[in-house]
């Protein structure tokens, strides 16, 4: 495994304002190479804003809001990916560099089949890579094999989430952003997916940033975690550090 101090992504002093409301307050974090970094926080803590800002989608939202006369979004701080400042890079260019977002609530192409969804994700990959990744996804989630010609919108929440993760993998990420991958799933599926995410890390070496509200199912798989409250990091540490803090335990781990 890679050494502990290598990092792929560094966020420094990031601030995001929605009009006058501070959504992300002076956040600095690092995602170490080949590790899973967890971000935990309640609704409105700023997880999704952080994910959108790192993936660059926030730039699009900002532009759209400015055009329609909506909220003015202001961004400060630096986002470095492999030692390169990407703060002002368009989202599609970030995706080419390997930062791929698996969005909250899956956002599948509901009228396309499962297989088509996966293939759409492979736009950035060449044929051989796509074929290899597709085979890997079916090995990771064997249940998708049977469902591959079904319309994605009619699949269960768990199956849809598998497709969403698979679609993100097809884009050949170096850095995978998972925004609430366990949202609205049954506990057994949660465990199943958490295991799969861990396998992705171990087998492919992709660095993963994972945002969740409820930390318990993913706690065993994260290497390092941050706890967000009202847009600020209130605590950070390894899984054991977080486990040993009684406040964190009761608030995010339900223990």
């Amino acid at each position: 495994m890679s050494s502990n101090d290598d990092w792929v992504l560094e966020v420094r002093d990031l601030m995001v304002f929605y009009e006058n409301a501070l959504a992300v307050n002076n956040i600095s974090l690092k995602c170490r190479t080949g590790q899973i970094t967890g971000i935990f926080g309640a609704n409105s803590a700023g997880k999704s804003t952080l994910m959108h800002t790192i993936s660059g989608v926030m730039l699009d939202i900002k532009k759209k809001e400015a055009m329609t006369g909506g909220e003015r979004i202001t961004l400060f701080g630096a986002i470095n990916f492999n030692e390169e400042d990407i703060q002002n890079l368009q989202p599609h260019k970030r995706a080419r560099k390997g930062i791929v977002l698996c969005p909250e609530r899956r956002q599948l192409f509901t009228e396309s089949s499962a297989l088509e969804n996966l293939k759409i994700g492979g736009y950035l990959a060449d044929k051989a890579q796509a074929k290899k990744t597709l085979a890997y996804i079916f090995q990771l989630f064997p249940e998708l094999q049977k469902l591959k010609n079904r319309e994605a919108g009619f699949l269960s929440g768990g199956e849809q989430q598998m497709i969403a993760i698979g679609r993100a993998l097809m884009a050949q990420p170096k850095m995978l952003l998972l925004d609430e991958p366990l949202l609205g799933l049954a506990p057994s599926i949660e465990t199943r997916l958490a295991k799969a995410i861990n396998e992705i890390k171990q087998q492919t070496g992709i660095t993963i940033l994972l945002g969740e509200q409820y930390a318990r199912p993913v706690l065993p798989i994260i290497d390092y975690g941050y706890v967000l409250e009202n847009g600020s990091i209130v605590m950070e540490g390894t899984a054991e550090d977080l486990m040993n803090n009684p406040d964190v335990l009761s608030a995010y781990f339900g223990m």
Partner: protein
Amino acid sequence: MQERRRERLDRGVKVRSDTIYAVSSAKEILFLVGPGLALVTVLLILPLILPPYWQKVLTIAGVYALLAVSFGFLANFVGLVNLGGAMFVGVGGYISGVLNSTLGLPPLLTIPIASVTGALLCTLLLLPCLPLRGVYFAVVSFIYPLATVMIISATGVWGGTDGIAGLNVLPNVWVNQYVIILVVLACMFALTRLVNHADIGLVFRGVKDNELAIRASALNVTWYKAQAVFISAAMGCFGGAYLTHLYGWVGMSLFAMDFSILPLAATVVGGTSTIYGPLVGAFLLVPISESLRSFGTLRIVFYSVVMVFCVVFWTEGIMNYLRRRYEQFERWVRV
């Protein structure tokens, strides 16, 4: 940190006049009613000061404003994009024209009758596609005026391609202008009140946002859409009937594409989130288009460039921008 960001805050007078304190001082009341008052005053004074040619332009602009308000209401507050505004104009125009030429009814009767019966007819025609969502309503509404023109020219009914001439005209140029201006203003205020303060307005906006949730609240979506189409169609039919008696002639040109497309353009330019946006858009676009008449066909190019600019770079439209400047101020703050 030395970084600064531009902050947007509501003006004090706006914050105060949002609450009961609005009635505490004349200044606050003026802040609330000022813009509306200014619009009414300008529109009422314009006929008195304009030269005769521009008085005619104002009258036509009034008709387009009415159509634009009708289009904007359906599109922005009910979620139905009506690409066939000309259908309303044509139906209203032909009903009043036929009533006037066959039964000899005066404009004072034919215009209201045409507005109501025309609106009923249009609502019935559109009823089958009301349960559908998305592009279907737009397509069906777009086809109706085109099809009606073909029917009229093929069968030769109601004067066929020549139309019906020699109808009663409105008494004088002052009635011409003030009738349409007063009707436009009345519709604007009534609709603003409807969508902002009435229960049915709440349902309309709900239909636009989430039809499923409206159904789940045990409300019949189609019935509410039909009511909204009726309101919109009544305005369009009034415009058609009014045009008929303005020219003393009714013909197939009432189904022309202009009546469908210009309201759409006015809505885009004026801004989509208010009732008065399309109205202001129409009162700007029609005179601009007139004043560029000397450029011949080049004016269409200019016109299109303005349209494309608004759609691509300035989606919020004029009125949303002005409202923000009116209600809020901006300043730089240290982060």
